[in-house]
Every structure is written in structure tokens, then in C-alpha cells.
């Protein structure tokens, strides 16, 4: 039987990362993936990633996928696509369906990196065509170029629900509402804010009463729920939609491990049924490792680091590297992983209400309840300052591990410091040259360049814009506030697109100066 040093199941962020590390150390590695294209979820993720440079921050997910594939090819990794692993049998025998045949392989070591599957919720009508998973929406629009629907209601305010809502609008769908039974937004505030400012209403403490339609979805009714998640009569709201998108969490796809006899546990903190493993991904089966979401739901950035760890640990297991190399590398990877697990959204804070930032500032309750920071709350954050002339306004109000903005500014106007989760501050005495790099670099689209007083009674606001059609200079329209409601008339005075901005266009609009700190989005009048 054909034997590999390492068989990896899943060519997503963790699987590919593991493959690269193992192959670099001289192992013969094969990666099997059931999909037509490699990269796992990376190729569906078109937003810029958070983190720092080592986490490939501000690079869009699909570009990270391309980078990883190049690295894998360079390292000599064999990636086999359309290859469905149908079973992990005893003695690390991997049976794979490839084309019209099944193949048996032995792995001296095996890394399971199968990722996660979406959770579902039930409500009357949840089986109707038109009710889809958020992942399904991403697959259709970002891989296959087909709009999931015309009018969509999103259930779930975690990062997936927020990011996919934004993506739905980017591909031309209308998102009529973002609904969550929880009392507060689950995902990053900056993700919520960029959705809210386009006018999508957030309904927290609400959930779906019923999806309507006979043959497919034609509408949906939501209602408010009380603290025991019971509907409050009289709070029903109806929307005409053709699509209901469910983004209610992920569960590890750990079936192969269970099948192989690995010790499993049901661990709600890790998202469900996971193999019992140590911090490097060693399972109860010698030589079988795990990496990425299959061992606990996190972000793609952490999956890549976990993958690298598992690849190195597998190399050590088979003597392709020594303990010193392993310890040295794993230690620095652990640091990188720790970096990602900091801040308000750190695993230990899951489900907790964090009321103050690390700096001791009150967290915006409006952001948690409605998806945007209220005008009277925004001034309390250190990134929001006033000065004469153009200057950056950083509406970054939660401690998340992310710092590309501080390196983006050639004039060093922005500082986060050594603590990656700190809120960005405007460096006193620094001089903004209106280059726009900070605006484009912010993965949360939370940085604006504002000239609060142009001297003629107007102000200019430069904002990140990732929609089509891209308004042209001179376009007239309205400025929307953080809440997505009209604040005033506006005119586009400048539109900048540059390779360095990586598809984030910079749109500068002119508004009456009293709206300089309120106007945050532009909508052209047709």
C-alpha cells in the first residue's frame, strides 16, 4: 500500500499550513481535499484579515489562500483535489475516493484538518428553499458568482453573520435586516458598524417567528424575545424577502476522528464534539494530529498557526526534525497564537459582557445593541480627536488583536504600541498627509480622514468604499450617519483607487461642516 510520511485531510488554512511546515522538514506529504478548489473557506473570505503582520493582517482571505498554495507548491506538497476521504480506518489507513476509484493509503502520521460545518436553528418554514446557511451564501456569491437572493434577512450577528451581510451587499443583494436572539452583537463592533452605516437595521433580542412561502421563501416574520427567549406578543415585524441566511455558529467536523476511535469530548467552548488533544494537536491516537476548526472553532488566522504547529509536531514525531527545532518553532507560534487570543473577543471572554476597554473607557452599548456607536459615544475613544486640517479619525472602540494601521501611516500618525489589542491613538504633533493608507489598511473599515472645516462652511470626509457602482467625482447624494440614516446632502469630491489600497476605494465627500463627525457613508441619489 502506498505510504506517506504525512497524510493531511483538508486543504484549508490549517491543512496547507501544516503541509508546508512538514514538507520543509523533508517529509513526503499529501493533502486530500474533497472540493474542486483548495483553500477551504479562505477563497470565500474576501475581506481583509485582522491581526498583525505575522498573521497576514490586511491581506484578503482569498489572497492568503493563493499565498499558501504557492508556498505549498514550492515546498513540494502534493495537493489532491476532488479527493474525498471516506474513512480513516485502523492503523492510519486512509481511504480516498478519487474520480471513479477508491484508493487506500497509509500515513505514518495523519493530520485531520477538516474544518467546521454550520450550525442550524429551527423555525416554521426553515426547510423552505431560500433558507440557506451563511456559508452557502458565501459559496454561491464568492466562488460561483451567483447572487444568493435579491432581498436577504440575516440571522446571526457573530462575525460570520456580519461579514456575510457585508459581502451580500457587495455582490448586489439587499440585506433587509440583521437579526439575533442574543441581547448584543456577537461579532466585532467594526464589522457591525460597516454594515449598520449602510442602512441595515439590527434587531437584537429578536428571532425568526416563521419563514413564509409555499414553494420557496417569500417573506419572514421576526419578533422580539424576552430573557427566556420567548416571543413577546405584538412585537412581530414582517419583511418581504426571498432569502433567509442563517449564521448561528459552527461545529467542528470531527467525524473522521470519531470514526478512527480517537477519544472525543463535547466541549461547548470549542464548538461541540472535538477530539481530546493537547495544545499542539496530538490526539489520543499516536501519530494522528488535528489542526484548525476541527479541534475548536476559531478564526482562519489561528487555524494557520495551529496547522504550522501540527506540521512541525508531526515532523518531530517521525524524526524529521529534532526536539530543539520543534520547541523553538512551536514556542514562537504559540506566542503568535496567544496574540490572536487576546482582547475582548478572547476565548475566555466568550459570552461575557465586557463593559470597559483595556484603557478603562466605557464600551459603546449602542454598538452592542444596534450595531453602531452613537454620535454622543464616539468622542470618548482615543482614535477620535479634533484638529485643524485633514486628520485620521479611528472609530476603533473595542480591544481586538489588530494593528496594521500603525504601520500603514508613513508619517507615524497612528500608534497602537506593543500591546496589539490597544485602541489606536493619534500621535500628538504628527502630520497627516492625506495619503489614505490608513483608511485602506483598516480591516474593520473604521478609519476616516476628516477635514472638519475646509474654510467654506464645509467639511470633507474620506471613507473606505467597497461597493459597485463606484460613485464618480461630482456625484451628488446623501451622507448617512453611523446609524445608516440620512444626515445631510453630500457630494463626492474625490475618488481614489490604488494598488496599495487593494480594492478598497477611498471616497471623499463634502458635507456641511456641522456633519463632519456624523457623516460616515455615501449613497448616490439616482
Amino acid at each position, binding site marked *: *500500500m*502506498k505510504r506517506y510520511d504525512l497524510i493531511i485531510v483538508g486543504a484549508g488554512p490549517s491543512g496547507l499550513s501544516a503541509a508546508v511546515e512538514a514538507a520543509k522538514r523533508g517529509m513526503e506529504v499529501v493533502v486530500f481535499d*474533497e472540493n474542486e478548489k483548495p483553500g477551504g473557506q479562505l477563497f470565500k473570505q474576501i475581506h481583509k484579515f485582522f491581526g498583525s503582520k505575522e498573521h497576514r493582517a490586511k491581506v484578503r482571505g482569498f489572497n492568503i489562500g493563493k499565498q499558501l498554495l504557492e508556498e505549498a507548491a514550492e515546498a513540494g506538497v502534493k495537493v*489532491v483535489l476532488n*479527493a*474525498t*476521504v*471516506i*474513512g480513516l*480506518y485502523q492503523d492510519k489507513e486512509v*481511504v480516498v*475516493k*478519487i*474520480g*471513479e*476509484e*477508491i*484508493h*487506500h493509503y497509509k500515513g505514518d502520521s495523519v493530520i485531520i484538518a477538516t474544518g467546521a*460545518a454550520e*450550525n*442550524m436553528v*429551527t*423555525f*416554521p418554514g*426553515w*426547510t423552505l428553499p431560500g433558507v440557506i446557511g451563511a456559508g452557502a451564501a458565501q459559496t454561491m456569491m464568492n466562488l460561483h458568482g451567483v447572487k444568493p437572493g435579491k432581498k436577504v434577512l440575516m440571522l446571526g450577528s457573530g462575525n460570520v453573520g456580519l461579514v456575510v451581510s457585508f459581502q451580500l451587499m457587495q455582490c448586489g443583494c439587499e440585506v433587509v435586516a440583521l437579526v439575533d436572539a442574543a441581547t448584543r452583537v456577537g461579532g466585532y463592533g467594526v464589522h457591525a458598524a460597516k454594515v449598520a452605516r449602510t442602512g441595515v437595521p439590527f434587531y437584537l433580542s429578536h428571532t425568526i417567528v416563521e419563514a413564509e412561502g409555499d414553494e420557496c421563501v417569500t417573506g419572514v416574520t421576526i419578533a422580539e424575545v424576552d430573557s427566556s427567549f420567548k416571543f413577546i406578543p405584538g412585537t412581530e415585524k414582517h419583511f418581504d424577502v426571498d432569502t433567509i441566511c442563517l449564521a448561528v455558529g459552527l*461545529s467542528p*467536523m470531527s*467525524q*473522521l476522528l*470519531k*470514526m478512527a476511535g480517537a477519544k*472525543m*469530548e*463535547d*466541549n*461547548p467552548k470549542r464548538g*461541540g*464534539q472535538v477530539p481530546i488533544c493537547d495544545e499542539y494537536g496530538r490526539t489520543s491516537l499516536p501519530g494522528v494530529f488535528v489542526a484548525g476548526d476541527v479541534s475548536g472553532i476559531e478564526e482562519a488566522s489561528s487555524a494557520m498557526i495551529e496547522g504550522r504547529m501540527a506540521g512541525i509536531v508531526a515532523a518531530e514525531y517521525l524524526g524529521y526534525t529534532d526536539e530543539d527545532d520543534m520547541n523553538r518553532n512551536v514556542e514562537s507560534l504559540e506566542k503568535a497564537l496567544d496574540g490572536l487570543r487576546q482582547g475582548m473577543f478572547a476565548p475566555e471572554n466568550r459570552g461575557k459582557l465586557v463593559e470597559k476597554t483595556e484603557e478603562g473607557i466605557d464600551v459603546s452599548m449602542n454598538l452592542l445593541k444596534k450595531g453602531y456607536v452613537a454620535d454622543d459615544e464616539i468622542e470618548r475613544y482615543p482614535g477620535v480627536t479634533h484638529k485643524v486640517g485633514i486628520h485620521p479619525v479611528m472609530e476603533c472602540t473595542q480591544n481586538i488583536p489588530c494593528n496594521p494601521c500603525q504601520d500603514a501611516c508613513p508619517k507615524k500618525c497612528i500608534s497602537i504600541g506593543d500591546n496589539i489589542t490597544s485602541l489606536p491613538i493619534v500621535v500628538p504633533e504628527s502630520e497627516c498627509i492625506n495619503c489614505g493608507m490608513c483608511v485602506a489598511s483598516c480591516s474593520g473599515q473604521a478609519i476616516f480622514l476628516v477635514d472638519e472645516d475646509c474654510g467654506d462652511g464645509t467639511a470633507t470626509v474620506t471613507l473606505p468604499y467597497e461597493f459597485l457602482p463606484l460613485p464618480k467625482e461630482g456625484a451628488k447624494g446623501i451622507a448617512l450617519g453611523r446609524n445608516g440614516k440620512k444626515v445631510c446632502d453630500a457630494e463626492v469630491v474625490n475618488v481614489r483607487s490604488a494598488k496599495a489600497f487593494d480594492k478598497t476605494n477611498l471616497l471623499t465627500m463634502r458635507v456641511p461642516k456641522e456633519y463632519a463627525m456624523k457623516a460616515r457613508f455615501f449613497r448616490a441619489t439616482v
Partner: protein
Amino acid sequence: MNSVNDRNRDIGPFVPAPDDDMLICRCEEITKGEIRKAVHDGMWTLTEIRRYLRTGMGLCQGQTCSKLVKSIVARELNVSPAELEPATSRVPMRPIEMRIFANEAKEDDDYE
């Protein structure tokens, strides 16, 4: 990991609920009420529920409903879902045509 489980422990009577007709297992079209009733018929493990009702035995093999079924059974038994056994998983991970399953590549054949 076997634990002694007295199947005659009183879990109270089956009380009909308004959402009993909610479909839970999409493949086999099993409702919440059927699952709850099965618990009162003595099916106290996910394995027994599956064998008794066919939840998770359809085309998707429980990839969609297993977490939902687990929470319903746990609530009916008044235990935490983590106390119920992990869902079984069996070969093949995806449905596979008999002619392909039967068609084992020769030792020296590779996929290139």
C-alpha cells in the same frame, strides 16, 4: 466509559408542546415531537433515538441535525448535552456509488 443508567428513572410524563411538529431531521423528516416521545418510550441515548426513529440515518448521515437532536434529548432528560454520547460516525463520510466503492485502485495506480 460506560456509565450505569437506570432506565426506569422518572423523567415525568410526555407533555405535548406547540412546536412538536417542527421538523428536526431534514433528511428523514422526523419531528421534535417524535423525538421527545421516543425519549419517553425509553430511548435515552442518541444511538437509540437514531435506531428507533432514523434521525441522522438519511442521506446526510446526521451532519445537519445531530446537534439539534442532542439538545432536544438532553432537555427531555434534564441533563446537559455534554452528558450524552458523541454522535456515531461511520464510513463513508459522503455517499459513494457502489460501483466506485467496489472499484479499488490497484496498488501501483496513482491519481496522476
